[in-house]
């Protein structure tokens, strides 16, 4: 456990709450698929990939870098992205008899965030050379 656990916990709470509010504002964006949730999951993954690559260059025992990493990745990105709404949306698509759209939703909620992580890492690597 990090020394000074409390600042990490408070930072995760504040930034997690901010992420949740942004997610709440865009989660109603929906068409044939729940695009809002797909968008927040992808954007959060992009930011997480960027932060992971950007802060990997910092010294391992740098407390400020650790705090920023935890607050951004566990706090903001964790609060912005969601698995529960993805599960709910996919089950609802199945219930509506739209099994193919449910499968596409599941596939996109895996593929797009993974691509976003890779893009985030590449972006950080190119910007922070």
């Amino acid at each position, binding site marked *: 456990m990090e020394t000074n656990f409390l600042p990490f*916990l408070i930072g995760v709470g504040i930034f*997690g*709450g901010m992420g949740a509010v942004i997610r709440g504002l865009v989660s109603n964006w929906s068409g044939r698929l729940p695009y809002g949730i797909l968008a927040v999951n992808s954007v959060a993954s992009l930011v997480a990939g960027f932060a992971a690559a950007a802060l990997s260059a910092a010294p391992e025992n740098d407390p400020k870098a650790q705090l920023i990493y935890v607050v951004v990745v566990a706090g903001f990105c964790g609060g912005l992205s969601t698995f529960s709404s993805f599960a709910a949306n996919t089950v609802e698509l199945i219930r509506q008899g739209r099994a193919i759209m449910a499968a596409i939703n599941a596939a996109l909620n895996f593929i797009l965030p993974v691509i976003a992580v890779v893009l985030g890492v590449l972006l950080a690597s190119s910007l922070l050379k």
Partner: protein
Amino acid sequence: MKLDNKIIGLTFAGGALGSMLRYGLDFLTPNNLVLLFVVNILGAALLGFVAARGEKFTDAARSFWGTGVAGGFTTMSAVALWFAVEGAFAQWAFSMVATMFILGLLAYFGAHKLTQKLSR
């Protein structure tokens, strides 16, 4: 749902609580993969419960427990980051994520059904 200051405040509070619970659990689980399974399956079940309560839950309660706590407790960005970094795009890592997705859907569906049954 009308997005007024109360709903936004409750979503913030729930998201903060869910995120802090997830962060705290990080220290009680042996590795990131176990953490992701635990938070995502429990969080999906919580949302299944909230959704099944329907009209019995006010907009405020749904914002706090559903969008806030369940949404903040679960995470997809950490799954993607884990798959790319720790899982290194391996086939076993893909199997783990696929298993998590299936269990998450079952958790939501099961909690929804069970809550509806118990509410009758």
